[in-house]
């Protein structure tokens, strides 16, 4: 049996939402940046257990510097969020807590995974220096470029969706 779930990726522009999805869906990566406008939707089915598949309908939203600017219709019927920020650009995680509070308020029952992308560009010391901001908030440090923890991120979210 296959069920389908809607997953929405949000975050500032240029943080790598499109790249993460391309890594997950097509297993490709490019250094070029093509700005997403509106929304792109793609799909990948993954196997959860022996006879259980889950079809993830992934919504790749246009980047916004403020989550409140997102078109409400894009968020209709969302089953899970992935909030993406760029580890190398502090502006993209400065207001992380406010952004997450917005989701909590409006989608209190929808699971959210918070990821810091482009981990290939920073070192451990950098992560340590920012640990106050990241600890207890960030679920995964990922890299669309190397693919590090991308599969894991989606798999874990899918698992969470099944259990609900």
């Amino acid at each position: 049996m296959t069920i389908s779930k809607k997953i929405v990726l949000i975050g500032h522009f240029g943080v790598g939402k499109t790249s993460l999805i391309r890594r997950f869906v097509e297993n490709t990566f490019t250094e070029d940046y093509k700005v997403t406008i509106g929304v792109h939707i793609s799909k990948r089915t993954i196997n959860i257990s022996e006879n259980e598949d889950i079809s993830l309908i992934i919504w790749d939203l246009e980047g916004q510097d403020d989550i409140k600017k997102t078109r409400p219709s894009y968020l209709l019927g969302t089953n899970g969020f992935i909030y993406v920020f760029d580890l190398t650009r502090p502006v993209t995680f400065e207001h992380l807590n406010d952004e997450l509070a917005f989701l909590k308020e409006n989608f209190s029952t929808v699971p959210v995974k918070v990821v810091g992308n482009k981990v290939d560009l920073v070192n451990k010391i950098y992560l340590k220096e920012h640990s106050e901001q990241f600890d207890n908030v960030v679920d995964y440090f990922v890299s669309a470029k190397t693919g590090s923890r991308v599969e894991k991120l989606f798999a874990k979210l899918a698992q969470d969706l099944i259990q609900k």
Partner: protein
Amino acid sequence: MLKELKDKYHKNNFQYILVDDLGVVLEQDHPILPTIIGEKIQDIHPFFEILTHLLTTVNESFEFSCINLDFNNQEPLVVDVTLKTHNNNNLVIIENLTKHYNNYQLTAQTRNESIINSQILVLKNEYLLEKETFKNNFIANFSHQLRNPITASTIFSDLLINSNLNDEQKNYLEIIQSANKDLKQRIEDILDISKIESGKLILVSKVFNLKELLKNIEVIYNYLASKKGLSFKLEIGEKVPTFIEGDQYRLKQILANLLTNALSYTSKGHLHIKVSHNHSRANKVNLHFEVEDTGCGIAEENLESIFDRFTKIETGEEQTGVGLGLAIVKYLISEMQGNIKVESKIDKGSTFIFNVSFKTSNYTQDQKEELLNNQLPELKQKYNILLVEDSEIIQLSILKILASTGLFFINIISDGEAVIPNLVDQKVDLILLSNTIQGYSASNISASIRSLSKEYKKTPIIVLSTQGYKDDIKRYKKNGINDVLVKPFDKHKLLESIKKHLK
């Protein structure tokens, strides 16, 4: 006519699709999307899976704008989608806005890229700044650590030269002395550069005797020039004032730097130094300086870069200097509101020309007289000196200097706790206090001495410091410290300061 046109254009941009509550296509008009009657709309693109939940509502309207739809073998489309739900007869309206949105994409692309670039630039600058600060602190700390050993080496060589040595030994020692001097100069230069870069190099403004300063320079460089078989001439213009206000040590540093260079690049001929009056305005006087040599000269392509850090004029012969000197000179001159330039011809020689401004007023007759009678007093009695220093090598060298004069009784302690008991126990006329005492800062020790009874308020305290920054010196003075000798110091400086404060 209008209706026809409207139908034509309107039609091309819109597709109306009728679907049942499961999403099966019942009817459609002008095809924009590759939908097929009888098949589920959800199957043509995953976007439409969102409809699955919405189709069960009745008399509702949903709008989705700017949806990117990719189909195999078709140009990507960007459309607005409207859903109007009716019982089993739901209308899906597709408006093709690909052109419009593609234009918008281009605008967004430019905007986002430029914002991200500026953010990356800011990050880079922050990173560079951090590195720069680290470097400057590192240089400053490291140079300070070199001061104690160099001080000791300088003092001991000075002491040794006066002992019984044969000619060969004297020769060796002179080489050591000159190496010490060189090392000391390089450390000073490096410190100056790091001070300049961290904005900590600040000029003082004090009245001084310009002509005396120039005469002193003349004595030294006349001697050095004659040793190389060169002639030396100092010319002072008529209207050049005797007393001016500014930083005499830095002016001396500028001239010494230029003259030392001139000396090392010249093997025959002369060195000239000319000082003349440019103009006076309000309470400022602008002076013109020239330092001329008949040395190897500088190639035209090098003229621009010689004031940069770490460049050295290439001559094929061996040269001295790390090349920081001219960068410091240029900075000091610009701090004195002046300019420097150089004129040069290969094999004919070079002339460094600069002008700087000094204050002329703001000093009294008394100050002038004090400057003129600035001879050191001769001491008439023996004094008690307390030396607080934990470096044994410095203890020993100071002991030797003071002992050689026969003027002082010396008591040495190396631990901060013993200072006060020692003071109370015996008469102390002057305290020499190191800034490297374990667990104590010179400022703290001084402050506690000053807080004792009245008789200790006036005992001169001279700090022997590894730090020569203006901030440090200010802090020392605030805590009742009378003078600061920055390591490495030599015999002359030490005695000068002691005598001045025992006067």
